């Protein structure tokens, strides 16, 4: 099915563990984004990518790593999870910057 998918949908982990959140899109959009959503802060950009092998930091990149070896995939890794990274994470894609962003269903991550 065409669209943007995220996995897992729910994840519980412990402080210090490495966690990878997956994002896959089928439109061949150039741009992909990772956001976290927390009460009172709205959506905050973590990292984004303009194309394969091109990534850049957003507003809150500390503690996160991304890669984009293929256009359709944009995984987000928390190298050593902290409780402050408990959040809902959304992946999105768009054809061009400033165009409509298509969001995945989100991953709810809890760090104990």
């Amino acid at each position, binding site marked *: 099915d065409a669209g943007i998918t995220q996995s897992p949908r729910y994840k519980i982990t412990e402080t210090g563990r490495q966690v990878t959140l997956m994002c896959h899109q089928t439109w061949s959009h150039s741009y992909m*984004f990772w956001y976290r959503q927390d009460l009172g802060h*709205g959506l905050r*950009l973590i990292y*984004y990518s303009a194309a394969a092998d091109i990534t850049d930091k*957003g507003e809150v990149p500390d503690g996160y790593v991304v890669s984009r070896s293929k256009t359709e995939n944009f995984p987000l890794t928390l190298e050593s999870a902290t409780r402050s990274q408990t959040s809902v994470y959304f992946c999105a894609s768009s054809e061009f*910057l*400033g165009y409509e*962003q298509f969001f995945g269903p989100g991953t709810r991550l809890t760090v104990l």
Partner: protein
Amino acid sequence: TQLLEQSPQFLSIQEGENLTVYCNSSSVFSSLQWYRQEPGEGPVLLVTVVTGGEVKKLKRLTFQFGDARKDSSLHITAAQPGDTGLYLCAGEAETSYDKVIFGPGTSLSVIP
């Protein structure tokens, strides 16, 4: 730092009432978008405005972009329970190439 502010933060109204929510910034935006997010889902684009003073209508929703392209409003006529959700504005600031930022959102609840 470019910021988008939204007001009110929360709004609870009766079915059939009219309402307006606002999105404001001190920065000039090349374009501004409005998204609606329902619980447990990612945001979905409602409209994009690009020209200062532009007004767009989507059924009972009217969107306006300020003349100076620093603010926007969303007016809903005769609100219905299906309008319930989080309304987010997002924009690409002219002075912040490649950065799209989101406001914190207005949470709307329409009571039957």
